[in-house]
């Protein structure tokens, strides 16, 4: 890219891809923005009219809105905590050479290959079901009353399911980070009199901080949009107990056929996601160079 000619040629060659990408992003965003200012209901498409800020105030004053925001945050934070803590623990376990290492690693990674609705259905019908789930069998075996997970702890149940799905991702990223930890550093620390706990705190954790940042940032992006697991298990209930923002928007658009309100909710969700992103970049982003 030395000369001016090659530079402008490069720009020309890049242009189609960039333009396509811009259209791909900007058109839906612009249309969503546009719809969010319309009274646009699919039950009465002929009556579409300009609404001003009504959709926003309507979505904002919906009693479910703050529940949904809170649930979204609890869901994201809960899954992040479980996956990072357990992911680190599992990564450290499977980092050690054991018999059947290859198979163990594949088994640990496999939940990632199950698509979300299928995973959620398996959990709903085979594991957490109050009469024929595995948890119910276990409870009965110990003489306890089975727990009706989705009725009693709806949000916790969804957190468990989503964490199960994302645990392999965290484990995998953290495992590769662990494997790049210099063995001589560990030995030096051993010579310096650091026990296993001190070595973990002073060497392993700082070394993993960058990988943890990547896990947290990437997972947050996806966790803000969790939807399928809620749809096939609790349907956002009981009440609004497991409704997050994405599900609230779905409810507005597909159950109430209120395109304008859903679009306004979408825009609010985008803004909130940006808040979360800024906060995250401040909190953990400095680990990335």
């Amino acid at each position, binding site marked *: 890219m030395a000369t001016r000619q090659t530079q402008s040629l490069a720009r020309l060659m890049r242009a189609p891809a960039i333009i396509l990408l811009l259209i791909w992003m900007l058109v839906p965003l612009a249309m969503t923005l546009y719809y969010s200012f319309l009274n646009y209901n699919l039950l009465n498409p002929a009556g579409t009219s300009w609404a001003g800020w009504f959709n926003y105030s309507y979505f904002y004053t919906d009693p479910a809105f703050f529940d949904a925001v809170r649930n979204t945050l609890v869901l994201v934070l809960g899954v992040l905590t479980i996956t990072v803590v357990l992911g680190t623990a599992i990564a450290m376990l499977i980092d050690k050479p054991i018999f059947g290492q290859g198979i163990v690693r594949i088994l640990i990674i496999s939940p990632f290959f199950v698509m979300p609705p299928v995973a959620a259905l398996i959990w709903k019908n085979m594991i957490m079901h109050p009469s024929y789930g595995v948890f119910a069998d276990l409870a009965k075996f110990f003489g306890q009353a089975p727990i009706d997970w989705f009725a009693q702890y709806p949000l916790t149940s969804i957190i468990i399911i989503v964490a199960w799905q994302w645990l392999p991702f965290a484990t995998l990223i953290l495992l590769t980070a662990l494997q790049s930890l*210099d063995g*001589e*550093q560990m*030995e*030096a*620390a*051993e*010579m*310096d*009199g*650091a026990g296993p706990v*001190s070595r973990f705190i*002073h*060497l392993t954790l*700082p*070394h993993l901080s960058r990988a943890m940042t990547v896990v947290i940032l990437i997972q947050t992006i996806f966790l803000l949009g969790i939807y399928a697991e809620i749809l096939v298990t609790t349907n956002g209930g009981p009440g609004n107990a497991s409704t997050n923002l994405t599900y609230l928007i779905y409810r507005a658009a597909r159950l109430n056929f209120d395109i304008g309100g859903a679009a306004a909710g979408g825009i609010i969700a985008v803004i909130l996601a940006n808040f979360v992103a800024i906060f995250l970049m401040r909190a953990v982003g400095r680990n990335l160079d």
Partner: protein
Amino acid sequence: MGSITLRNVRKAFGDIEVIPGVDLDIQDGEFVVFVGPSGCGKSTLLRLIAGLEDVSGGQIMIDGQDVTEHAPARRGLAMVFQSYALYPHMSVRKNITFPLKMSRMDQDEQNRRVEHAAKILNLTDYLDRKPGQLSGGQRQRVAIGRAIVREPSAFLFDEPLSNLDAALRVGMRVEISELHKKLATTMIYVTHDQVEAMTMADKIVVLRAGRVEQVGSPLELYRSPANRFVAGFIGSPNMNFLEGKAAAGHGAHAIGVRPEHFRMSLTEGAFAGTVGVAEHLGSDTFLHVDLDDGTHIIARAEGEFAARHGDRVWLTPEEGRIYRFDAEGLAI
């Protein structure tokens, strides 16, 4: 203080026996160098002494106390690694205080020791930097600093200079020797570089395939090598070996002559040959000579010697500087 004794120490990785049995006595305050070609087990032996590997048999004693089953930290030794193994996210100061912090030493004493070590090693200006911001030589000094603050009974060095460039290596060699004089602590130093071994050691241990070939002071090894391997390994350039008729004349299977023990002549001498490469350094001249019987010889003349590629030269070994070896390679 820091005497180390190995009694029939063995080490096997699975079925492969790396060290078949080593006996060694290291006196307090000695500078001992383990030297040998790559894969001879010298680093493994050092790691056994450090406790980073478990022995497969035998005993390791420090100051008369059996430490064979002790964890590395309890042996009172400090090690400097080939990669330095500094903690990348900690400042130089934190790196150096880490072992003190782990032993829960009080803060004032920690600071006193760090300042002292920094002064000895010229690191005072760098205490707040991260290892990534230091040059190779400075990192090396931080690694040494981390070792000396603990005031160990012995230092272990695992090829500490192999990552440095040639000029820096000579400098650090001198610094480590000076440090040894200053601290008068036992040091065990592993290297494959026989120049480092010759210049630094009080005692050299030559290893081959996990066996101790010979133990002695640098000049003892130079003057009276026990076998052909030691003879060929100590000295630079390597000793020349002649077999066949030339050796039979001295009643041996093979004879060895060091490059510096040849007299060169353009007219007459014991062995005739043709100069392949002539290296004129000014202070020395190295001739790579192909003798008429096909043996390749390196000979050194002090000062300048006028010989060029293709010239005929005659080489004569100095009297009393001819080493004789039997068919097994043992010195006669």
